[in-house]
């Protein structure tokens, strides 16, 4: 390994300061000695031995020396060879062949091009959106042997700074022999994105465990994706507790990158909390409970540009009655939604991201729906990042008219909303009206938050609830302690989980 390091230091010497005694010999200097280090001359063919020995007394010719080094490698393919002519005080030249085994160097075994010096590092894509720090670090690869591990780490940093975009790396020849160009390719964000996976493992000290596993099957730059998902038990998302499976097929390019489609089929079995059962008994106007929910949902998405999209389709749900099985009710709705997002990458590592969406689900008799209702949901989120600091603000507003089934009704008080409250204490049947806002500040993943929200029905009064808390939060995991602020009791809620 030392020999190899020396070999590449030698190769790289023109790029670093060398003392006078080890300066490169000029072209044409008479060679008075030839050395081979790390390898026996007698392992080479007689012809090559003779050609190397005959260098003594001849004028130095770098091209010829490189050809001899290349012949050593061709005869001994388990080694790499480098050659240098060093100037002597008397003006003559000493030629040194340094030879080392490839298997002695992990970078070379990973990629043989790691023997070459990086001449340039280029970024193909939105260079201006990369932070100055990362740009500087990319350029640090230049002038050194290719460090594949470091290049891998830089690629990961690019992916992190440019969420939603794909980054690939390739190497090509440089302008001089033995030099290479490293190119990081950033592929533009697709106009239509695949739906985020719902995989999670979440614990809520008052509601218990929720586990969902989605397995998306596609390559990173694929136009289509198939997802198979299993909900082992999910009590976190809706007022119902459900388990089952879903299958989804998505295409984000149908003829044009502006048009996409999605088909989803799901079947979930429901269980109900005692609080919900008790509350329903005194609210006969709310549609009945169901034991199975079977849904088929085809939708299409049109993108005006990479940031603004509209989608529409149908959701057909059959709800098998809990008390009168196998009777069922249909909840068939038109869907329409619009969403937009934007990322600003400023100087000094400042990143801002804003997202907003509105969706309406209109169940009508025309679709053979037994339940007729309209559900409006508007959401907005803003995120600011600078260095280790991160601030997040979000707002959600919901409004339902008609007789919406329980899976459509809004609820607050889980691991993402009114953290610290239990949704079965707030509204065990959910509600037809909802608003929720949250502000959160994180420093190095240590987070504090303040949530505000209310969920109520059209004929009841709204009660605004507050909660606060702290925890360790990252983009996909959290460990949170939440406190309800205007509660009669003072229960502390502990939440932890990963979303991936």
């Amino acid at each position, binding site marked *: 390994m030392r020999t190899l390091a020396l070999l590449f230091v030698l190769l790289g010497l023109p790029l670093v300061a060398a003392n006078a005694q080890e300066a490169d010999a000029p072209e044409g200097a008479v060679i008075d000695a030839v050395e081979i280090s790390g390898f026996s001359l007698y392992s080479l063919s007689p012809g090559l031995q003779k050609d190397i020995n005959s260098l003594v007394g001849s004028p130095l010719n770098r091209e010829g020396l490189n050809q001899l080094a290349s012949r050593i490698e061709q005869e001994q393919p388990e080694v790499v060879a480098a050659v240098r002519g060093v100037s002597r005080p008397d003006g003559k030249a000493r030629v040194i062949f340094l030879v080392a085994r490839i298997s002695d160097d992990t970078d070379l075994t990973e990629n043989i091009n790691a023997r070459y010096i990086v001449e340039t590092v280029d970024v193909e894509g939105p260079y201006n959106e990369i932070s100055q720090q990362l740009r500087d670090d990319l350029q640090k690869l230049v002038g050194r042997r290719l460090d594949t591990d470091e290049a891998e780490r830089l690629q990961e940093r690019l992916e992190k700074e440019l969420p939603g975009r794909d980054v690939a790396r390739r190497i090509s020849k440089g302008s001089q022999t033995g030099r290479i160009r490293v190119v990081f390719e950033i592929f533009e964000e697709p106009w239509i994105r695949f739906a985020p996976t719902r995989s999670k493992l979440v614990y809520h000290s008052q509601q218990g465990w929720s586990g969902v596993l989605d*397995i998306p099957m596609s390559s990173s730059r694929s136009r289509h994706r198939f997802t198979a998902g299993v909900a082992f038990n999910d009590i976190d998302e809706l007022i119902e507790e459900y388990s089952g499976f879903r299958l989804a097929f998505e295409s984000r390019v149908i003829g044009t990158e502006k048009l996409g489609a999605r088909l989803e089929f799901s079947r979930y079995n429901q269980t109900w909390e005692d609080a919900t059962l008790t509350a329903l008994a005194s609210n006969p106007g709310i549609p009945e409970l169901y034991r199975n929910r079977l849904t088929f949902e085809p939708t299409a998405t049109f993108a005006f540009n990479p940031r603004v999209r509209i989608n529409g389709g149908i959701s057909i749900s059959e709800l098998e009655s809990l008390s009168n099985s196998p009777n069922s009710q249909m909840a068939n709705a038109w869907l329409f939604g619009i969403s937009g997002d934007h990322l600003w990458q400023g100087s000094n590592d400042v990143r801002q991201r804003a997202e907003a969406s509105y969706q309406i689900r209109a169940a009508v008799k025309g679709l053979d729906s037994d339940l007729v209702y309209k559900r409006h949901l508007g959401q907005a989120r803003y995120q600011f990042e600078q260095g280790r600091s991160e601030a997040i603000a979000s707002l959600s507003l919901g409004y339902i008219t008609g007789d919406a089934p329980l899976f459509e009704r809004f609820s607050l008080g889980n691991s993402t909303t009114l953290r610290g409250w239990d949704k079965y204490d707030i509204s065990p049947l959910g509600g037809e009206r909802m608003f929720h806002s949250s502000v959160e500040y994180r420093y190095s993943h240590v987070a504090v938050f303040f949530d505000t929200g209310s969920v109520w029905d059209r004929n009841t009064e709204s009660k605004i609830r507050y909660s606060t808390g702290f925890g360790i939060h990252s983009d996909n995991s959290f460990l949170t302690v939440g406190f309800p602020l205007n509660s009669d009791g003072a229960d502390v809620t502990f939440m932890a989980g990963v979303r991936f």
Partner: protein
Amino acid sequence: MSAAISRSAGWQSLLPLVVIAVVAVPLAAQSVTVRTVANALHVQARGFSFIEGPVLTRLKEGRSVRIDFELTVLTKPDGPSTKQAAQGFTLSFDLWEERFAVSRIGSPPRSISHLRPRDAENWCLENLTVPVSSLGFGRDTPFWIRLAYRVHDVAPEVNQAPDERYTLRGLIDRLSRRREEADLAKSVDAGPFRLP
């Protein structure tokens, strides 16, 4: 008319030969042979090419490609395996020498460069062996060979970010890649053979 029938019959008699030729050419192109060197059973598979298509494209873009091989010895076609050997290799393409380099993963490491595509493929197979003594049968016993490889789209796992190697996200990423990898896998069955 009779001449026409005669010509037609002639073509019909040639048809099976054409079919045999069409079927046999690819089979012959993937002929598998075995040999023993000392205590090691080697396999040679002419036409079992893997440095082509997307693999070749990736290599020529300076990326490295990992390929895992499995050599299985079977006592009958599709029967139970008697012995299995697995070996991974990392391939790269020397941009300046315009030759391929291969490294055997594991211990002891072995690497070689300056290879043409077919030589690189042969070198991988040369380094995939099954000990003859472990087979548990004699020279008169027929056996079959299953040779399979799978190309990984990514750099070897040792280069994955340490914090992502064992996470659920990593698991999903690996599962997500499965279909693409399936497009880059091949296997061939051959036999019967007898120990030389």
